Each structure stands twice: as structure tokens, then as C-alpha cells.
């Protein structure tokens, strides 16, 4: 069954003018519906996403990735989406992995991409070690056993979305989301995906030092 008509791909973007057009085009060409949430970018992210053909939602001020994703999810629900995918704006995720992610929801409520089951391109050993350590901590905190706890490539059924409403506006939403999944009793499956690290995506990504801020937010700003 082709799930493209019942699926929305939600992309949160901040200062991604250089890459967003390419990312949107590649997803649209494959036949998926795309909603880009421009999180108050001062650059041309919104204009480039719209020019590429996406539905663009624009935060008038920057709220953080968690809030941007939540906005896109609510929009998609309002559009009657039955399945929702979150996809990175910096080109790290591959459109080729989308069908497997969405199809995994035939037997699950939530599908989480795993670069440790799939693969990475261009990741240094330091980053891989950091990700594994973060996953170990996250598994302890959330109670959900995963091989990759912080992959932004996720898919879930619309029926489970109300249970996964994130309150953390910034990057701590990833840890918060896993906690909500754990509490909700949702059926979770991990799907092998390949994450492409480029110089561009590495510049845009999180530094290990930011993990301290994320853990503070997750622990104290519930």
C-alpha cells in the first residue's frame, strides 16, 4: 500500500536557506506531502521552502526545534494526516528511507530511525561514541530501550500524536519525546536508516557541550 496520501513529512528549519530547497524538492519529487516550519529564521528559509513547493508555517519568533515540530504536527493533524514523519532540514536524512519508516507503522504506533542499525556517512569516531553514551543515558531516563535515542527521523500514527505532545521547546524535546513514548505504552519499532553527515550538517548540529543544557532542560523544565 502506498502511504503517501495519508502521510505528512514535517520539517523544522532554522537558518537553513542554503539547504532547505534541495531537501524539500527531494521529498516532494518522491510524492510525499511536506510541511516546513520556519522557526523564525532571519534568512530566506521560508521563501526557499515555499519556492520549492512546501507548505510553509512560520514562527514569528524563534522557539526552538521542539516547538517547531509540534506546530508542524498539529498542522498535519488538521490536514487529516494519518501518519506523520519528522525529517531534518539539513540534508542528513535520506528520502530513500522514508517508505520503510512509514511502512513500519503498519505494525507499530511509533517508528524511530536508528543509525546504529543502519549506517552513517561522514561521522567521526568521537561523534559515534558521544551518540552511544547519550543513548545509554536516555534509555535509563525514558525506560524505552533503543539503539539510537536521538535520531530526528521519526514516524508515528496520528492516533498516538496527542499522547506525544512535547512541552520542551528546544532540543530537550528529543529526550522528552522518548519519555512520553515510554509512558504512552505505544508500540515502538526501530528502523535502520542512514544518516549523512556533511560539513554543513556538522556545523548546524549539536555540540557535545550542548548536551549539558539539554539534560538540564529535560530534568528541571518539565
Amino acid at each position, binding site marked *: 500500500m502506498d502511504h503517501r496520501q495519508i502521510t505528512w513529512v514535517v520539517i523544522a528549519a532554522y537558518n537553513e536557506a542554503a539547504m532547505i530547497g534541495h531537501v524539500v524538492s527531494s521529498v516532494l519529487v518522491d510524492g510525499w*506531502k511536506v*510541511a516546513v*516550519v520556519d522557526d523564525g529564521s532571519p534568512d530566506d528559509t521560508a521563501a526557499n521552502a515555499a519556492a520549492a513547493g512546501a*507548505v*510553509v*508555517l*512560520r*514562527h*514569528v*519568533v524563534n*522557539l526552538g526545534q521542539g*516547538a517547531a515540530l*509540534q*506546530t508542524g*504536527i*498539529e*498542522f498535519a*493533524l*488538521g*490536514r*487529516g494526516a494519518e501518519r506523520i514523519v519528522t525529517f531534518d532540514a539539513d540534508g542528513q536524512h535520506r528520502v530513500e528511507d522514508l517508505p520503510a519508516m512509514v511502512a513500519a507503522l503498519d505494525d507499530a504506533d511509533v517508528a524511530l530511525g536508528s543509525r546504529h542499525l543502519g549506517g552513517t556517512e561522514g561521522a567521526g569516531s568521537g561523534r559515534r561514541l558521544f551518540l552511544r553514551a547519550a543513548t545509554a543515558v536516555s534509555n535509563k531516563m525514558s525506560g524505552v530501550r533503543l539503539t539510537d535515542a536521538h535520531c530526528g527521523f521519526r514516524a508515528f500514527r496520528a492516533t498516538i*500524536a*496527542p*499522547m506525544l*505532545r512535547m*512541552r520542551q*521547546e528546544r532540543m530537550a524535546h528529543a529526550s522528552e519525546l522518548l519519555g*512520553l513514548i515510554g*509512558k504512552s505504552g505505544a508500540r515502538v519499532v526501530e528502523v535502520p536508516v542512514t544518516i549523512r553527515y556533511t560539513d554543513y550538517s556538522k556545523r548546524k548540529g549539536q555540540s557535545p557541550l550542548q548536551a549539558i543544557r539539554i539534560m538540564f532542560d529535560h530534568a528541571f*523544565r518539565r
Partner: protein
Amino acid sequence: MIARILFLTALVAIGYLGFVRRNRLPVNIMLLFVVLGLAAVAVIFPEEMDPIAQYMGVTAGVDMIVYLVQVGLLFLSLHFYTKFVDHQRQIAVLVREMAILKAELDQSRRGTTSSPPVARDRVEDKVPAAL
């Protein structure tokens, strides 16, 4: 004597700004009045604070007042931090709602809506408070 007049003036000013100039009274107004009253007593009769301080295990009344002020300031910091986080969340809800409404409007104007928007309950209304 001058210090006492200054402290009392400050207390009166806080009371005036806190209660008279407010559009609506705070819930804990009585508690605040009691605190202001006690502070005024401490200023007018500082020597009377010593026995109370010693009963509570503090050497001098002035020390006790300093400790209470420290606790009060910490409480205020926490109070305003909580308010700040609440306001951040309220702003986030507004900004997100604006983004969605604007996108819906743009879609309608362009006539590119492939499917009409379904009735959209706010997601947060459906979520148990515990979440």
C-alpha cells in the same frame, strides 16, 4: 533614626505600588500585608527582635532579618522564574497557533488545499495534565 524613616518609607512605597496601583489584588495579599507589618515592627522596635532571634537560634535580631531577606529573595527568584517559564509557554502557544492559522489562510487564498482542514481541537486540550 534616618535609617528607620527610610525603611518605613520604602515599606509604604512597596505597599502603595504593590496594592493600590495594581489593577487587581494578588491572592496572597493578606500574607504580604503581614510581612510588611512585621518588617515595620522590626524597623521601629529593632531591640525587640533580639529575643525572638535568640529563641529561633540566631544571635541577633538583625542577623535574623538578613536570613529572612535571603530566603525571601530566593523565593522571589523562584517565583519569577516559574512565571517566566509559564509566559514562555504561553508565547509558544500563541506563536504556533499564529503559524498554523496563517498557513491555513495562505492555502485557502491560493486554492491549493487538497483536502479541507478537519476540525482541529487543540492537541493540548486532549492531553492529560500529567503529561
